[in-house]
């Protein structure tokens, strides 16, 4: 995957993508503002959400052990996975133990993060995504581009084409004469998925929350596919990031208000499924909970960076981000795109412990620091602050590697260190610019930052006389 600026350039050239994204994000932005404005205590809820998550992070080991005890007592089995490979191995082994060659899935970011579908595929196990948008992505041999709406980059006629050409290869074919009417598309997906719900013996889910005091796991969804997966199969395997805990049911109440209003801009989501271990004669008779680290504990080690672990994956920050709106999610090269991805991905990939690859290092710079994300974040993650914090890590890691940028920044710092030096630079720039100016504006070219600016923008030339020179001439 190329670094963000390169990937973004490709994405920007896709007019269809920009139109689809612009339309979708504008609608959801306005809706979110409406439903958050109608709660008089919205800002207090945000503060409570942040405080509860910070408390969880401060005593994570104890709460995780409490969760394990409660899940085990309720008949579930808890597994601990250090990284993606361990988590994938555990899930693959569990599916094989039940002699199943296929699984149905509830939409889950954690399993996307560890690329579970690919791992199961390599083990010869068919994986069926059952969330409508995930189904579209999977049938289109595509990548998700949004946390909540993975197929946000597709419009309905593209979806009709994918259903027509790909559904037959994955199960029940699309009905003949399928149109791009939303109701017709939903009906096609319903018929296609129903066979799989009724047949599958094993389901895999993520979890939005887990309540430590009772060992209960919560999935919040809109379509009812989650409810099917969580109740019909014999075996349920849930992969859960360790930061998904809340201490008590009372704490959960705060998040069940924050999440739907921030994500789908609804007062309440249509389906909230909560289960505690197994219940004889009702629902899956085996429940496995895989607790996933995969960089989270390393993130917890950074006192500034750890606030990213408050994230409840609502994607409000994506929807308000002017950068995301123009590039879409794939340019970020991670299942976590947008502002939250720009701070979460580098940390999960270990930026707090060691230098990261060039693509990962480009992510904290993929922001104009406009701050719209912080305003929208239901758990008050100071994303702009964290972006700048991670930028410093990137620059520190590159220390000792000279670059044009470092040279420029060092030269600028040297000029700014003494007013006399700055005055000299201003005089030289003023003379140089006058020689190059045409029609009152500079139009230059060249490599690096110079070319980057002038490719699309003019610049007024440095003034003949700087303000400081004018002041000295007039006020002494």
């Amino acid at each position, binding site marked *: 995957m190329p670094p*963000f*600026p390169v990937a*973004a*350039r490709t994405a*920007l050239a896709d007019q269809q993508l920009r139109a689809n994204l612009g339309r979708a994000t504008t609608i959801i932005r306005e809706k979110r503002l409406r439903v958050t404005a109608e709660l008089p205590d919205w800002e207090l809820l945000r503060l409570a959400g942040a405080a509860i998550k910070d408390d969880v992070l401060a005593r994570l080991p104890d709460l995780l052990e409490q969760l394990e005890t409660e899940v085990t007592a309720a008949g579930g089995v808890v597994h601990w996975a250090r990284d993606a490979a361990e988590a994938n191995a555990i899930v693959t082994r569990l599916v094989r133990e039940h002699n199943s060659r296929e699984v149905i899935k509830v939409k889950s970011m954690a399993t996307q993060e560890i690329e579970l579908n690919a791992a199961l595929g390599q083990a010869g196990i068919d994986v069926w995504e059952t969330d409508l948008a995930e189904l579209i992505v999977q049938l289109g041999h595509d990548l998700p581009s949004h946390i909540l709406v993975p197929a946000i980059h597709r419009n309905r006629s593209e979806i009709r084409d994918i259903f027509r050409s790909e559904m037959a290869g994955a199960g029940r074919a699309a009905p003949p004469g399928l149109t791009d009417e939303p109701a017709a598309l939903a009906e096609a997906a319903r018929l296609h998925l129903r066979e799989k719900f009724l047949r599958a013996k094993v389901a895999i889910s993520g979890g939005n929350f887990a309540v430590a005091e009772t060992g209960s796991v919560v999935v919040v969804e809109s379509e009812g596919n989650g409810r099917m997966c969580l109740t019909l199969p014999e075996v349920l395997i849930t992969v859960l990031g360790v930061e998904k805990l809340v201490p008590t049911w009372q704490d959960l109440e705060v998040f069940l208000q924050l999440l739907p209003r921030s994500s789908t801009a609804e007062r309440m989501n249509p389906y909230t499924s909560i289960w505690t271990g197994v219940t004889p004669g009702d629902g899956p008779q085996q429940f496995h909970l895989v607790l996933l680290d995969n960089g989270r504990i390393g993130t917890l080690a950074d006192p500034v960076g750890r606030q990213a672990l408050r994230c409840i994956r609502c994607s409000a920050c994506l929807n308000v981000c*002017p*950068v995301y709106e*123009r*590039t879409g999610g794939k340019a970020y090269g991670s299942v976590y795109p947008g502002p939250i991805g720009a701070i979460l991905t580098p940390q999960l990939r270990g930026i707090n412990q060691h230098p990261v690859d060039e693509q990962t290092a480009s992510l*904290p*710079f*993929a*922001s*104009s*620091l*406009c*701050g*719209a994300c*912080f305003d929208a974040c239901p758990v008050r993650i100071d994303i702009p602050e964290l972006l*700048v914090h991670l*930028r*410093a*890590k*990137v*620059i*520190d890691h590159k220390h000792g590697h000279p670059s044009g940028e470092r040279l420029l*920044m*060092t030269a*600028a*710092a040297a*000029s*700014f*260190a*003494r*007013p006399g030096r*700055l005055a000299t630079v*201003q005089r030289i*720039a003023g003379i140089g610019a006058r020689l190059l100016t045409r029609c009152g*504006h500079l139009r230059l070219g060249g490599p*690096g*930052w110079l070319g*980057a*600016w002038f*490719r*699309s*923008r*003019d*610049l*007024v*030339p*440095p*003034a003949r*006389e*700087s*303000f*400081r020179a*004018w*002041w*000295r001439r007039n*006020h002494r």
Partner: protein
Amino acid sequence: MRAALFLTCLDDTLFPGVGKATVTLLERLGVAVDYPAGQTCCGQMHFNSGYRAACMPLVRNFADTFGGYDTVVTTSASCAAMVRRHHRLIDPAANTPQVHELCEFLTDVLNVTDVGARFPHTVALHQTCHSMRLLGIGDRPRRLLSAVRGLELRELDRAAECCGFGGTFSVKNPAVSSAMGSDKADNVLATGAHVLTSVDTSCLMHIGGLLSRRGSGTQIKHLAEILAAT
């Protein structure tokens, strides 16, 4: 009343007219303006780009230059936010004074919204991200503009959205920055206003650069230049 002017490196070098207008405006309102010669830059470019070590001498220089003043006024909301929010974090020992963004100084310290200006033109106001979200200056620029004689304010569509400048973002991610700026320029042109104004020259430099490349005659003026006009 005495006030020290912190002009920002950008205005000093590229837009000295902003500084001159601010001096004119403040002196007209009875403020004795001082321009401490030791000033250079608030360090925001280095800080936001990850060069923290390089930032430290600039933060100290700012405190050394302005520490002795009770009142410091600046023409950049973004730089005001940098000083207010980050200088003490970067150097807890620095004697950083309180800095007022120009609109805040006019409305909150001088308690004036009608500064006696006359500017008979159509004007669009770009609300900058840092003035809104980091300083919370709210409707102060709008209140000041609405008291200017002859001025007709044109409403900007998607006014709260970032113009895409973002400091070094504009050159590290030039394609996205320009795409955001182009959309902003479209909205500016749609107002039909002859002048685009804001409380930060940096945003204006970016939007103005895009407008100029398109051959548009829309002028960019810092709010101080409008308020200084009579």
